[in-house]
């Protein structure tokens, strides 16, 4: 009985996701403004990134504030493979994902023994060390960064100077893939294990959950998807340097939509991104261009407000109410 209502809820979620994606796919029919299209691309990208972050930090409960490392690895792998070896970006993104997953596993091996603040600070420290190394790595352009050489618009080279739409559809696809991966995992053995690890690692261990391997798997999946997003971003902005793809602010930007929408929920990251990214982009363009810091102030106040006012996130608050109603 409970199983069948659970299954139908899951099916409804999937149908809803496909409908939302279809509706978003139709947006360019009405939205012709390039500035707004640009904002939509970023919103979808952060929905995808935050969904990836949510897998490790939300579902598995290992709060990472170092995901900028994986984002930057994806961006650098994609552009370096293309500019130095002529590898097409679509393969470069996959390679970046694999490298990031390997790094996540290598980093996780010692770090998943750490608890609480020790773990959070370790993630920051490792990402900062990565940033320092990239800043000093001459072959990879060091602090100057690398530019995508212009090769004309094509999917093969993943360059589109004339229109934002290809980027838009790719970002939409990425967000959908990240959502479906989360949806799939939620009901799998891994999904149950992760939530068990999050709620009480010791109890989970005693019930036979392989805690360490669970964390490693979550980190690898999360890092892979984040790096693909980084590769996409590099192509989208066509110029990267260490500060612009690996700085701490990206780690925060990936976490915040999930925090706003609801940590460890299926819809939280997408809902959070849909609210947060337009607000930050609009304040940035209207007030931030002057370099006066208005955008930071608005952003910071928003983050404080979210943390204090909606500790369970928008989606979390909604489903808690629904649960209370049906009970």
């Amino acid at each position, binding site marked *: 009985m409970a199983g069948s209502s659970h299954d139908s809820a899951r099916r409804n979620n999937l149908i809803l996701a496909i409908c939302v994606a279809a509706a978003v796919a139709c947006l360019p029919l009405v939205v012709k403004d390039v500035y707004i299209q640009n904002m939509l691309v970023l919103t979808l990208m952060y929905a995808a990134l935050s969904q990836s972050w949510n897998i490790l930090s939300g579902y598995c409960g290992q*709060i990472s*504030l170092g995901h900028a490392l994986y984002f930057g690895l994806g961006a650098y792998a994609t552009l370096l493979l293309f500019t130095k070896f002529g590898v097409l970006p679509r393969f470069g993104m996959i390679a970046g994902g694999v490298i990031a997953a390997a790094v996540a596993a290598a980093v996780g091996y*010692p*770090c998943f*023994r*750490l*608890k*609480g*603040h*020790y773990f*959070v*600070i*370790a993630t*920051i*420290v*490792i990402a*900062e*060390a990565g940033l*320092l*190394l990239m*800043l*000093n790595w001459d072959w990879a352009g060091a602090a100057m960064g690398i530019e995508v050489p212009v090769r004309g618009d094509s999917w093969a080279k993943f360059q589109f100077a004339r229109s934002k739409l290809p980027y838009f559809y790719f970002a939409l696809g990425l967000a959908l893939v990240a959502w479906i991966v989360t949806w799939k995992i939620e009901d799998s053995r891994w999904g149950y294990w992760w939530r068990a690890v999050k709620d009480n690692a010791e109890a989970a261990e005693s019930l036979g959950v392989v805690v360490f391997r669970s964390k490693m798997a979550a980190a690898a999946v999360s890092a892979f998807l984040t790096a693909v997003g980084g590769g996409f971003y590099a192509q989208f902005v066509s110029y990267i340097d260490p500060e612009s793809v690996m700085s*701490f602010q990206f780690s*925060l930007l990936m*976490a*915040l939509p999930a*925090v706003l929408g609801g*940590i460890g929920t299926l819809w939280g990251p997408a809902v959070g991104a849909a609210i947060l990214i337009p607000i930050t982009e609009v304040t940035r363009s209207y007030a931030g261009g002057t*370099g*006066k*810091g*208005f*955008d*930071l*102030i*608005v*952003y*910071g*106040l*928003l*983050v*404080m*407000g*979210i*943390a*204090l006012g909606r*500790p*369970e996130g928008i989606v*979390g608050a909604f489903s808690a109410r629904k649960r209370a109603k049906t009970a």
Partner: protein
Amino acid sequence: MTAEAVIQSLASGLLMGLIYGLVAAGLALIFGLMDVVNFAHGEFLMTSMYAAFGLYLAFALDPLASAPFVAGAMFVFGAVVYLGLVRFAMSASANAGMVQIFATFGLAITMRGLAQLLFTPDYRSIPHSWLGGKTLKVAGIFLPAPQLAGALVSLAAFGALWLVINKTDFGRALEATREDAGAVALVGIDKKRIFALGWGLGGALVGLAGAVLATFFYIYPDVGASFALIAYVTVALGGFGSVFGAFAAGILVGVVEAGTAFILPASLKYLGIYALYLLVVVLRPRGLFGSL
């Protein structure tokens, strides 16, 4: 020649390390007291540096002279942040750990934005401080006077802190609250008041550190970020919450930084600190001096 260079770099590492200890002291105090990591700690430091800079511009006060005033102002600021923000974050109904992290992060971003708005992103410095540019030569080793003064301020501050914690009623209440915040209510200690005073004291300590740094470091809105990360590393190495652990860890961090700069290019000097952190917490997950 080489031996001299090694001693020279050890000495400057030691001075810087004492200052790092002072920067981290307030963070460690607050963490030990109530299990909260203040992610706006770097911005507290930045604010203190601008305060020292402002007092210099307005009254031609040297940062070393204005340090007590900066510390006093930061005491009030710290208590206000607790009463106006952290108090509510701690009573969050869900995800309490996450709420504390992001509430203080939000504060950090806001403070950085305000600094940009009020002071522009330009780099400032105090051109004619008492000790600026002066060095002391002791037994063939050059000691930059501002750093030396900062190290002495740090020693004095830790000495005073030791007296406060061990010899005053407030210190005893602080220790008691830190050990068991629930039980102290039974003996008539107002927990909230102690927390507010703890945040005030933490603010005052970082205020001192900011004034000291203002004598020889550039002042700009993002200046807190790199010092904050070093402070987190210092506090974690010292064993979260141990104020005197942070003191020892600060010295270690300073010396390791100087040692790294000796071996690797100077732009990579923080790598040594990061490696030290990872090594220590992996081998000893409670930090060097942490109990439990």
